[in-house]
């Protein structure tokens, strides 16, 4: 195993900074390269799928040639509406209200007839 001594006592600030910036730029440039390729591959795959679909069904899918035809305000409004819709999903309730009869089971613990301290009451003549 090789251990690199990266800490140099005479490390030059400017050289380190330049190196740092160039590594960040090159790392992200590599990502640009990779995602440009995957983007092109994806576009090709979509075009192939679309061509297959047309060949098998004979129907041409509706394609918006230029998305800029849709005004930006409309896109923003649709996005906002979708966001509000997806964020405000509640449980759907049945809205049916039922009244159930509550029946109390008999218990000698709260029976008035057998409790010890009976309250006084006037006897009818």
């Amino acid at each position: 195993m090789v251990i690199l001594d990266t800490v140099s006592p005479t490390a030059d600030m400017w050289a380190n900074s330049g190196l740092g910036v160039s590594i960040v730029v090159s790392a992200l440039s590599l990502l640009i390269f990779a995602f440009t390729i995957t983007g092109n591959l994806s576009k090709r795959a979509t075009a192939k799928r679309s061509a297959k679909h047309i060949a098998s069904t004979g129907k041409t899918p509706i394609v918006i040639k230029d998305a800029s035809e849709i005004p930006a305000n409309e896109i923003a409004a649709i996005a906002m509406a979708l966001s509000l819709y997806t964020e405000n999903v509640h449980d759907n309730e049945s809205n049916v209200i039922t009244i159930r009869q509550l029946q109390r089971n008999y218990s000698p613990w709260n029976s008035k007839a057998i409790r010890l301290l009976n309250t006084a009451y006037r006897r009818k003549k």
Partner: protein
Amino acid sequence: MKQSHKYYLLALLLSLVPMSTYAADFGNTLNRFWSMTGFANATPQHFIMIAVGLIFISLGIIKKWEPLLLVPIGFGMLIGNVPFLTGFQVGIYENGMTQVAMDGLQNGIVGSQMVNVPDPKFNGPSVLSTLYQGVINGWYPPLIFLGIGAMTDFSSLISNPKLLLLGAAAQIGIFATFIGAHYLGFTDQEAGAIGIIGGADGPTAIFLSSKLAPHLMGAIAIAAYSYMALVPLIQPPIMKMLTTKNERVIRMKAPRQVSKTEKIVFPVVGLLLTTFIAPSAMPLLGMLFFGNLLKESGVTERLAETARTALMNVVVILIGVTVGASTQAVKWVADPETGELINKGFLSWDSLKIALLGCIAFAVATASGVCMAKLMNLFLKKENKINPLIGSAGVSAVPDSARVSQDVALHYDKNNHVLMHAMGPNVAGVIGSAVAAGILLAILG
């Protein structure tokens, strides 16, 4: 006097007999109790820090500037600056350890060195110290990155990958501040930790400072989060200064629709490419891309939901309170060489310098992003031109800086919505600042 009242009076007199007997002890106990109260130990510095904490809380609640961060940090400052006598294992720095001199071999020379060992008289670290371990050992920031990954939609970046360059350009702020901090007298490690403020990424700043300069972590985190909250004030003047009126009204082409496969491939390829270049950034980038894969895979929705809500909220609470509590006004630390006590508290000239450097870092990062967009426009076809206002979103204050771009663009053209485009450099900035942190850690760690 009634008979019953006489009995009460007699009982009261009798109860005072033992009290008078032990009056001296009573006085001593009261004195001891008083010496332990916050009132007896308070210094003007404590009150200054409590006032700063209250300002943070007020800004979060009244102005609604980053309330999810400023309120926990502000309250943490109140907790951390309650004056107390050390030794009762309540403070955030009371970790139940003690320093002892031990003979050992260091750099091939036998000598005495100070070593931390558990102190038997303390029953482990304090509660705050235990919670603070997530900051010290750097495991809160990757968990926050997991949540960010699980809530971020990278579609705009995938549809227009060249926007990654704006995120890369904004990282110039980090390295410019790194140089500036060096010239202000900070060591290389301290300068690296301060420079990362320019990345406008709180978790990354905490992660790097915990590794390079733990003693400056409080000041760095506070500066990073304060400037993130001040993004709507700092960025617009710089954006307006560096752009012409015609550039501000450039309308960008709508981003193309991104397929699900592309969204799934993105975190896998992104992780491998970036961490192979900067493996030190693996804890941050690994969790960021893992969180994004959970979101985009479509089969782990429960995990993604937990990462972006419950887990993220728990960690934000813990990181906010503990970072706030770590900003103690006065913190006496023994000099390892002379043994002399030095104040390493928050109220020092170093903190002021860090605040100044942080502001410069944000300004440079914003300017670099805008200038890069202008530079790219020189090489792009007319229909592919970039609105330079989205360049400022290269600083990774998600989504505040993207929102600022949108607001400024709408000010000049009420129908020009650049938010979607601005999110591209914004998330690129998150990746860029994590890569930059990895590079600084590799060079200076």
